[in-house]
C-alpha cells in the first residue's frame, strides 16, 4: 500500500495509533486521543464547522492535527471551506463550531506566532520591498534598532533571491517576485507556523515551479511547520508530508450532507525529492491518480 488512506465512514472502527492521529476523531475515542495529541499535535483542529445558514453548514466535524516541522497541504474544490479553515487558523475568521489549538492554546485571534502568505501577496504598494518587510519585522520586535531590523530584512530578502530589487516598489516587480516578497515577509517574523493561502495560484507554470523549489528549500532548512492551500495536485505531492482532501457540501438523496475532511493521504515519497525527478519516483503516479480521482469523482458528486 502506497499510503495510509482511510475514508471517513471507516473511522468508527478502532484504529492503530499512527493512523488515528491523521483522521477525524470519533467522539468515543476523543478523550483518549486528546491525550495522545497533546504529545504530538502541535496544531490541533477539533470538530471545526462553519455555517452561514445554520441548517446547511459549509463543512462540519473537521478534525486534524499537524506536528511540528510538518508540511500539510489541503486540496478541495472551490467553496469547500479550505480558505475558511486557513482563516480560522490565522485568527482572521471564526468557526461556528469546534476549536483550533496551537501549542496547547486556543486560537482566538490573529497572532505573530502564525505567519500568513496571502494569495494576492498583500504587499503595501506605497512601501518598497525593504519597507514592507521592515514593517513586519518592526511589528515582531518593536525594540529592535534600525540596523538590526535592516540586517534581518536583508537576510530574508536574500533568502528569496531578491536583494537586487530590495528598494523597488511592488508595482515594479513581476507576480512571482511579489509572491517571493510575501513569503520572505512571512518567514521574517519567524512564526511558529506558516499559513499559505494558495500562494502560487496566480503565477505562470515556470515561475510557480521555481518558487516551489525555493519554498521547499527554505522550509526544509528552517524546519518550518506549514499549512498550505493548493489546487495543484503536483504541488501538493512535491511539497507536503500529508495531503488533506476535502469534499464539498451537497444534497444527496433529499438531505444535505455538509462538506468536510474526506481523507488524509500520507505522502510516501522520500522527503529529499525534487521537482525534476518527482515523476520518476515509484508510487508517484498511484498517489497522483488517487488524488485526481478523488477530486473528479468523489469530492463533489455523491
Amino acid at each position, binding site marked *: 500500500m502506497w499510503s495510509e488512506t482511510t475514508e471517513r465512514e471507516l473511522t468508527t472502527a478502532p484504529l492503530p495509533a499512527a493512523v488515528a492521529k491523521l483522521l477525524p476523531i470519533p467522539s468515543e475515542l476523543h478523550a483518549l486521543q486528546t491525550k495522545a495529541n497533546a504529545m504530538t499535535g502541535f496544531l490541533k483542529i477539533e470538530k471545526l464547522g462553519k455555517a452561514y445558514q445554520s441548517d446547511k453548514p459549509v463543512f462540519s466535524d473537521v478534525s486534524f492535527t499537524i506536528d511540528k516541522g510538518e508540511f500539510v497541504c489541503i486540496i478541495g474544490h472551490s467553496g469547500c471551506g479550505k480558505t475558511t479553515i486557513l482563516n480560522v487558523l490565522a485568527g482572521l475568521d471564526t468557526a461556528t463550531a469546534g476549536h483550533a489549538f496551537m501549542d496547547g492554546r486556543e486560537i482566538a485571534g490573529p497572532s505573530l506566532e502564525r505567519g500568513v502568505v496571502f494569495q494576492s501577496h498583500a504587499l503595501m504598494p506605497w512601501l518598497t520591498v525593504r519597507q514592507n518587510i521592515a514593517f513586519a519585522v518592526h511589528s515582531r520586535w518593536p525594540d529592535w534598532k534600525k540596523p538590526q531590523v535592516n540586517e534581518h530584512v536583508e537576510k530574508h530578502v536574500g533568502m528569496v533571491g531578491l536583494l537586487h530589487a530590495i528598494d523597488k516598489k*511592488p508595482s515594479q516587480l513581476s507576480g512571482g517576485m511579489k509572491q517571493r516578497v510575501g513569503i520572505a515577509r512571512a518567514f521574517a517574523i519567524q512564526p511558529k507556523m506558516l499559513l499559505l493561502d494558495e500562494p502560487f495560484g496566480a503565477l505562470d507554470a515556470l515561475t510557480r515551479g521555481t518558487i516551489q523549489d525555493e519554498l521547499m528549500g527554505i522550509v526544509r532548512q528552517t524546519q518550518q511547520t506549514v499549512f498550505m492551500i493548493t489546487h495543484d495536485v503536483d504541488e501538493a505531492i512535491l511539497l507536503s508530508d500529508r495531503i488533506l482532501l476535502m469534499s464539498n457540501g451537497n444534497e444527496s438523496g433529499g438531505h444535505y450532507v455538509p462538506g468536510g475532511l474526506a481523507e488524509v493521504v500520507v505522502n510516501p515519497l522520500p522527503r529529499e525529492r525534487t521537482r525534476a525527478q518527482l515523476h520518476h519516483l515509484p508510487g508517484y503516479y498511484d498517489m497522483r491518480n488517487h488524488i485526481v480521482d478523488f477530486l473528479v469523482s468523489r469530492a463533489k458528486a455523491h
Partner: protein
Amino acid sequence: MKSTHLNLRAAMVSLLMFLVFLGAWQLSATAPSVAGAAKAGMTAEEVEYLKMMGKDPGAVKSTGFPPPLEVGKAMVGHLADPFYDKGPNDKGIGIQLAHSLGRVGLGFLLAVLVALPVGFMIGMSPLMRKAFDPFVQVLKPISPLAWMPLALYTLKDSDVSGIFVIFICSVWPMLINTAFGVSAVKRDWLNVASTLEVTPLRKAFLVILPAAAPTIVTGMRISMGIAWLVIVAAEMLVGGTGVGYFVWNEWNNLSLVNVIFAVLVIGVVGMLLDLAFAQLQKAVTYVE
C-alpha cells in the same frame, strides 16, 4: 519628442487666442459711442445746464471700460509695490492676499483637523456612517455664505466668521472623501496588519492613512478649490481686508482697472493653490 511638439503647438494656439482676446478687448473699449448729435438747436444755457448735470452733449463718450494697456499699467503699479499700507481702505495687493490666504489657511486647517478624524471614524464604523449620514446629507448642500449671519451673531467677529465660513465649506468634501477612502482600504492590507498584531494607532497611521491618502488628498483639493471661491464672496460681505474686500472697494471707487487686476490675481492664486495640491496628490499616489 511627439509630446513636446504637441505642447509647443498648444502654447502657440493659446497665445493666439490670448492675442485675439486682447484685440477684441482693445477694440470694444475704445469704440466711441455716438453722442452730441442733439446739440443743434439748444441755447447756450441749455448746453451749460446739461454740462452741469454731467451730460455734456459735446463730449466724446467712451464706454468707460478700461483698455488692456491701462490694466497692464495698473498691474505693473500694483506689483511694483504690493505691500504698502496707507490706512484701512488703501493697502497693497500683497497685504490683501496675505489676509485672504491666512483666512483660507486657518479655516482649511481647522477643517482638516475635524474632517480627518471624523472621516476615519465614519469610514471604519458602518454604524457611525449610517448615524452621520443624515447630518452630512443635510448640511453639505447649504451654501457656506448662508451661515454668515449666524456666524456673525454667535462669533461676534467678522474675521473669525470668515474663517468659520471657510471651515464649513471645506469640511464636507474632505469628510466624505476620507470616509470613503478609509472604508475602501483593501481587506488584504488590514489582514496583514492584524496578523502582524499591529497596534491600532500604528495601523491607522501606517496602513490606513497611506492607503486612503490619494482619496483624502483629492478631497482636500476639492475643498481648497471651494474655499478659494468662497473667501472672495465672504470678504465682500464682511469687508475690512482681503482680496474680496479689495474687489468690492475698487467697485465702490469705480476703478474697473483695479477690479480687473484683482480678478486676474484671484485666478492666478487659485491656480497655484490647485497646483500645490496636485503635487501633493502625485506624492501620495501609489501604483498597485
